[in-house]
């Protein structure tokens, strides 16, 4: 009897990931506190909807983090792509051809941005964090130029309306797009040669190189995927809001980073999974949503996120270098001895 439970894949999955356990506890907690409102169908769909954009971005940014890098330009890519899509539609009308062109240009901008990042980061030993911090500013500069710093409304575009408003089986389209992206990232990371190479290069670049893996190409492709996913998220965001603005998606990269880190993907590269990163996004999403329902002011969210990242990374570091408290005590003892 107990054995059959233990062999149950669902049971195994739950026990193997403490994050699922934490998620379950949180869900139960918020459901109890909100007297069930939290667990209502409507609210659960809300959570899915609010996580979907971050989820799409994670499917790209995850590749960079697995390689030991980071891509903070997911937000800039999103903003730029959203702006390009909106401007193209505004200027060229809502004909099918023009909308297709708009999407092509928007996503193309993301791919191009990823290509440039990949070329620089695969060739030069530059901290990805800093480079993408600077390039994100550049991307937002382009967004401001493209939008002229005004809010751009998208009217009567069937496709955008469809993505933004229609629900299948009661679930908004962006959620389906996120699921498609997750499946894509999952398959690439777990079933393709490229995925294997990502983990290998992230774990030990030198050894990978000596095994004949084209490490530079692997890094290049990761940033291209990241650029594409960022741009896709931007397109979806514009469809959700039916508008594009110069500051849209700003600071989303922090949420993406937070989710990935909370999901246990190592900042040192080589370990972690897309499932867990998405789980991290849901953890944060659930906390935000629960806090909203409990009436906690939105201003506390930033703080909560900051503290969550600190705790998550501190735990990750502690698993390698010993817990900070122990290390500290040891050092202290040594000194006083």
């Amino acid at each position, binding site marked *: 009897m107990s054995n059959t439970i233990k062999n149950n894949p669902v049971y195994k999955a739950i026990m193997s990931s403490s994050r699922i356990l934490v998620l379950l506890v949180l869900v139960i907690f918020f459901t109890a506190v909100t007297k069930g409102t939290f667990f209502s169908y409507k609210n659960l769909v809300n959570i899915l909807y609010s996580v979907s954009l971050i989820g799409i971005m994670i499917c790209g940014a995850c590749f960079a983090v697995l390689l030991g890098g980071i891509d903070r330009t997911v937000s800039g890519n999103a903003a730029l792509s959203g702006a390009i899509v909106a401007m193209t539609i505004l200027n060229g009308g809502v004909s099918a051809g023009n909308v297709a062109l708009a999407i092509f240009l928007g996503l193309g901008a993301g791919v191009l941005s990823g290509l440039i990042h990949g070329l620089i980061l695969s060739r030069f030993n530059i901290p990805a964090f800093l480079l993408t911090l600077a390039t994100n500013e550049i991307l937002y500069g382009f967004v401001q130029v493209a939008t002229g710093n005004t809010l751009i409304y998208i009217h009567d575009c069937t496709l955008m309306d469809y993505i933004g408003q229609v629900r299948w089986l009661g679930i908004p389209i962006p959620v389906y797009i996120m699921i498609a992206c997750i499946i894509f990232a999952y398959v690439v990371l777990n*079933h*393709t*040669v*490229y*995925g*294997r*190479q990502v*983990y*290998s290069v*992230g*774990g*030990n670049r*030198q*050894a*990978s*190189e*000596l*095994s*004949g*893996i*084209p490490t530079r190409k692997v890094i290049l492709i990761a940033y291209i995927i990241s650029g594409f996913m960022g741009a896709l998220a931007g397109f979806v965001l514009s469809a959700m809001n039916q508008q594009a603005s110069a500051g849209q998606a700003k600071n989303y990269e922090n949420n993406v980073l937070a989710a990935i880190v909370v999901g246990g993907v190592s900042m040192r590269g*080589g*370990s972690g999974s897309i499932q867990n990163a998405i789980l991290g996004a849901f953890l944060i999403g659930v906390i935000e949503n629960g806090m909203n329902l409990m009436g906690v002011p939105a201003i506390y969210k930033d703080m909560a996120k900051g503290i969550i990242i600190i705790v998550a990374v501190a735990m990750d570091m502690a698993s390698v270098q010993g817990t900070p408290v122990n290390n500290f005590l040891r050092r202290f003892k*040594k000194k006083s001895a």
Partner: protein
Amino acid sequence: MSEKNELLFEMRNIEKIFAHVHALDHVNFDVRKGEVHALLGENGAGKSTLIKILTGVYTKDGGQIFMDGKEIEINSRDDAADAGIAVIFQELSLVPTLSVYQNILLGKEQSRFGFISDRAEKQQIQELIDRYGFPVKATDIVETLSVAQKQMVEILKALAADAKLVIMDEPTASLSSRESELLYKIINQLRDRGVSIIYISHRLEEVFNLSDRITILRDGKNAGVVEKENIVPSEIVKMMIGKELSESTASRELHTSDAEVELAVKDLTHIGAYNHVSFEVKKGEVLVLTGLVGSGRTEVIRSIYGADPYDSGEIIFEGKVIKPSIKRSVANGFGLIPEDRRTQGFSPLLSVTGNVALTSYDKIAKGGFVNKKDEDALGRKAVELTDLRPANPNVKVGDLSGGNQQKAVLGKWLTRDLKVVLIDEPTVGIDIGAKDEIYNIIEGLAEQGVAVLMVSSDIAEVLRVAHRIIVMREGKIIKEFNHGVATQEDILLASSGFVDEKEAA
């Protein structure tokens, strides 16, 4: 300097046990005042364990340590420093962006209200430098100095800390011969001023010239102490080696002595690393490049593999001149077992299967998608071929023991159709049982007709697996031994510089 034979430092009956193995078994070692005392022994003889105990990195499991006749305990680096013991590290421990005097006084600055008395410090250190006549200035920034100069700064650091006993571990390994000469002079100067020196080096010639006494360790035990007047090189080498190994190359015939040449290099030169190196490796042959660390062996095989460039010469594979790149090498059936498996050999976070499969995706993937079944089969095959333990291809390689990690690295290439395998120090840090298994794997490869080119410093290992042996020194081929003719003594003498000019020519 009152009396030349007065003891400064003594270690009695030192014991150190690692996992039930005696790394040091009742070792005695002493140093007189103003003496250069060399510590000799093959790799694994216990030299570095002894040094680590005496510098506080390890704690001894038994025995006593005396300094100036008083018993002391050394449990940390600070204890060692307090006792007046200083180490000149192989990998230099200086701060590159600070100046010489700042480095020498780091952590011991004279200060008033936190402000350093700069001028006094500079002057104090410059005086110290002048006293010894070192060619550095107190205000030089360390990163602008040569390796030899940095070493002098390390020595100055020891002197400024009033060290009575200075340990030099392979100090000449990365020095040119002119720089080495300067170092010898400095060592003699230190001795004349009453500083005692423990000198560790694989270069027997310099050891014999410099030392007042030599202590020889073998298998964690004392093998002898020799005074300067009694030094006879061949005797000392015998003490280091112990009994002749019963199993030598003579017992292993090359079955394919008439086999065709698989790989050849002609006049291969990489400036500063190796010079006009030429040799051939036949199918089924194990050719070992030996010599001291830094003699250019590793650089040669990395160039052949395409991991490093070379300046001139030819690499010939199956009769055709090739321009190697890693990608082409892998496609041609080359494999590399690199020198430092931890940084170059494997991805610690990946499973055995994950590591092994890295080289074989051309075989087990279609259209970019991995065939999981084939991949798992490959992992199992690697485990089987190398007898990897635990026999589970899903274990992370980072969690395996050293020997099994190396087997996983071997597995990367064994599962492919190899033609040439380049192996660099395959058994460093691996226990004896696993060593044997790795030798069997290498021999097995040769029997299948693979050309094996191996680099090794472990002479017992060289004799065990080699069909032919090439000794390199300072980037050049010094001597070549056919199978069955070389003894441990011959190789040791050749690699450390004792070769008759006639023979070398």
